[in-house]
């Protein structure tokens, strides 16, 4: 398992994923999404065909400074860098202004988010390669021993 702060742009994240080739990607973040503050949401990324124009638009956003989980998913998928299994675990922030501390709502939600991360790791398999996606093919021999990455 590798834990990284993916604070940088989505293209750079996609390039990092190409380098790591993880079996599972668990993205954890707090991007406002209109939910009640402190809400914890887990989302599975479901690949879909994306038109080149849409990917280019996402790449354009990414290289011009936008940072966000959905943008990472879109760009990494478009550039073929997303592992077969990608999960987003998000906390709805109460505020996004500069601060030295998290909001009380985010602090309260953090433990729940960590529980979800642990569940994902457990689902991925104990200390070795990720478990195959339900109904999907088993991990390839070359990647089966690689620990999941979050």
């Amino acid at each position, binding site marked *: 398992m590798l834990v990284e702060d993916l604070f940088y742009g989505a293209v750079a994240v996609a390039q990092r994923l190409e380098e790591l080739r993880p079996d599972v990607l668990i993205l954890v973040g707090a991007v406002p999404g209109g939910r009640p503050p402190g809400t914890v949401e887990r989302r599975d990324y479901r690949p879909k065909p994306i038109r080149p124009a849409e990917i280019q638009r996402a790449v354009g956003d990414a290289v011009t*400074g936008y940072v966000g989980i959905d943008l990472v998913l879109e760009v990494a998928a478009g550039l073929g860098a997303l592992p077969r299994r990608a999960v987003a675990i998000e906390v709805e922030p109460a505020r996004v202004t500069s601060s030295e501390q998290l909001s009380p709502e985010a602090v309260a939600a953090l433990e729940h988010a960590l529980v979800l991360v642990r569940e994902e790791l457990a689902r991925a398999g104990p200390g070795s390669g990720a478990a195959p996606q339900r109904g999907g093919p088993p991990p390839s021999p070359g990647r089966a021993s690689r620990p999941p990455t979050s």
Partner: protein
Amino acid sequence: MCFKNLPVEFDQNGAARLIGGIPDPYSVTVTRPEVAMTDADREEQIKRLSARNGHIKDLNMDPVTRVAGALAINVVADLDNGRYLDARSQATLFRGYEVILMGRDPRDAIFISSRACGVCGGVHAHASAYAIEMAMGLEVPPLGTVIRNMQEAAEMGYDNPLHLYLLAGPDYSEAVVRAVNPELWPKAKEWRCRGEAHHGFRTMADLMTALNPLTGALYREGLEFTRISREMFVILAGKYPHPQTVVPGGVSSTVSLQTLNEYHSKLGRIFDYAKRMLAVWDEIPEFFYACDERYKQVGARPMSLIDTGFWDDPHAYNSSYADCNDWGERRWSTPGVVIDGELVTTRLTDVNIGFEEFVEHSYYEQWAGDRYATDPRGDPISPYHPWNKQTLPKPSEKSWKDKYTWACAPRWDRNVVEAGAYARMFMTAMAQKQPANDFIQATGRSLKLNVPKGLTPEMDCEWHVPEVWNAFERNRGRAYHYVFSQLVGLASLLEAYKLFKQGERKVAAVPPDQLDKHIPKDERIGVGWWGAGRGYLAHHLVMDHGKIVNYQICTPSTINASPRDPWDQLGPYEEAVLNTPIIEDTSDPSKFTSIDMLRTIRSFDPCMPCTTHVHTGQGTVTREVNTCACGAD
């Protein structure tokens, strides 16, 4: 005597003073530039034409895509006669880093102002450190300056190909050209490339296909090379964007010979790529000009540019305002101002005292009073100068006659000037003041660049001051700037090796944990003149009792996206759009894409987060991706 509008003259020692006998000399009604056409004249012209021509269209491009952040362009187009009659540039969102920084420890500015932009991930941190160390009187050790130069050469190595291939490049790709300029495609297939030996494409059609988003070879290669440059930055600074190792008085990185060697190995890979880049961006203008001479007018505007200079001579830079004209002219790229094709000054004090910002057409209140009448040398500065400016946001309804943008209107000597990486080429080529070196030579009208061998042989190339200044030359200039910046990186690396050999290891004036003792309690001012991927960057700082009491960031895109000024002079985007002919087929107005205008705007490489120092409206970008929140699996 560089000022033609401001009432400023110089004595025999080069000290500036106000011309006597002018009451309220900086008043916008007293000191006025010559203006060919007012807004009232322009409005009258449009009314007249509208009355007899049904093809006048009011178009709003909101947002302009493939630029950084929120930019809208409103144009009035005369499709019948193929020209734009009016243009207005709008920065549509605001966050205001100047407001956030008030009352903070000045060192916070390095980290907070860095977040003003997600594209320019290191330049604001550096500019901020320069401003603070000038105010604090810290002298950077030579190796600290060299490391900063290397970091910022790497950042340009990231920024320039990103724009050329990921943002502007698609405008010249097969996918776009076949859709919006189909008449060019047969010519592209016939066009035998002159630079095939360097870039590898036999015809222009092949080259255009390589520019296609995502699938094109040049697009993919651009992505890869931005990565190498980012890695070079990270080797030195630990992370990119928003490095934590830029400090007042130098850097806090631990630099070893291994660090330098790693940087060297990556830089060595860039030069072959750089040669290909020049050949590509030399080929594109030649093709378009040959197809239709009117392309020379796309994005055309007067050759009036400004730059602060970039990358210091480690043995000249001492952070002092009193000495800034000396160390400024020793920079790898010379500071200066070009007005109508003539270099009028290379002195940083002139660049500074001639600079003003106006808010007549911006969503800000005019501030009252001015803190300073002069700079630290005693040269006069305007009430509109950044050291006097206050950021007072005042959102209101959009009104073309009144306020319509979050960008303000920076002017130099009350002239409209443009910023860009390419401005460094103009100043450096014309001034011929660069330190002696093995790689770059200024001739007065050109810059000769000696690109070292990689897998391909050493190559001499030359950027010339262009005959016309337009969208194509901006892109060409940016490609040459890429090479220029990487040669500065190489020269700085060699200087770092030399300093290491001499036993130099010190990279900061003061260890960061001892900076507290050096923070002055009295009132101080400073300015960080630095460069961004898009050109001119200045941070003006006022501090008192150890806290920031005023902080003003002026970015290249603030200059370029500026609205009208108090005398109805158009901002650079607006001016360039107005001069752009509509070459696109307009026989079916419903299919009109405004590609000529878009090529114009994108050639400036707009960065709107920098312009208004915004993130996004609510800090949120909404997009739909296919995810499911229904639970595990």
